[in-house]
């Protein structure tokens, strides 16, 4: 693709472009290093997700099994009643950490109520409800960790995308363009020098003739 070069062929411009290409190269190298590190982090997290997900899902399935049993033994209405009465106080602690400028959440579920503080009344609830509750609490703990990992993966992927685009822009567009301009200026300056040289020769010849 022929692109018209719009730089002025002067020495000033040449010095400016040389500086710019050095800066772009440095920026490119640093960003690529960052990209490498981001990829490393991304795969680290993906590996962790893979190990964790099957565990969480298994726990959740166990919880559902316990709940089905509970629904069968205690009855749907009673179970829903127990759910309404239960204390809704499970919390999740969200704090942050940084992986190279990417803010990533840390989540930790907290279930602070003891068995006696679950809220639903005791006299008409069977142990099946307790079992189901316990299983779901465990599932919640495990799932919050999974949520943290997945969120980290999303954030990293986003940053990785951005960094990759910048590295590619620098590598394939910006640096080549500057290099091309540099070459153009060098050629143009050389050409001007040659022009000047012949001009001087010619003048010298004319002056010689006049003598």
């Amino acid at each position: 693709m022929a692109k018209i070069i719009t730089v002025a062929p002067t020495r000033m411009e040449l010095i400016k472009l040389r500086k710019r290409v050095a800066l772009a190269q440095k920026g490119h190298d640093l960003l690529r290093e960052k990209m490498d590190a981001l990829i490393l982090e991304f795969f680290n997290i993906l590996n962790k997700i893979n190990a964790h997900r099957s565990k969480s899902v298994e726990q959740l399935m166990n919880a559902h099994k316990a709940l089905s049993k509970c629904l069968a033994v205690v009855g749907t209405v009673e179970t829903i009643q127990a759910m309404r009465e239960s204390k809704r106080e499970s919390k999740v602690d969200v704090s942050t950490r940084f992986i190279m400028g990417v803010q990533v959440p840390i989540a930790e579920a907290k279930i602070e109520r003891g068995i006696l503080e679950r809220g639903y009344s005791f006299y008409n609830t069977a142990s099946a409800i307790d079992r189901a509750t316990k299983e779901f609490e465990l599932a919640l703990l495990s799932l919050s960790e999974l949520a943290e990992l997945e969120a980290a993966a999303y954030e990293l992927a986003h940053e990785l995308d951005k960094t990759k685009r910048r590295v590619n822009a620098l590598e394939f567009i910006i640096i080549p363009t500057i290099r091309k301009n540099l070459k153009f200026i060098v050629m143009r300056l050389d050409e001007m020098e040659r022009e000047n040289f012949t001009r001087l020769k010619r003048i010298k010849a004319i002056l010689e003739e006049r003598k």
Partner: protein
Amino acid sequence: MSYKIAAIGDLDTVVGFGLAGVAQTHVHRNADETVAKLTEIFSDPEIGLVLITHRVSEELKKEIRKLMSEKRHTLLVLRIPDKTGFTPKEDELKEIIKRTVGADIVLNKERS
């Protein structure tokens, strides 16, 4: 900072997490109702974790994606299977890996 948890999905999921002490629960019946509830939950500063079953998230893909793009930093969203273990074949994370890495990667299950 401590935040509350929300769960959205079928009745079993909601009852289960309700027993586990999740603060906000919603049983999915129709799209409009659930979207309204989701919007409410996403704009609630006290919520820190939202659990959505895959079935609901598949049904309301567009809306959830829109909400996700505008969410706060400290709000985590996780899609979970329901009691039948339903998970979609094309999951979001895989799509993202495909896009960013440029290849479909099958992660080694035995490792780590």
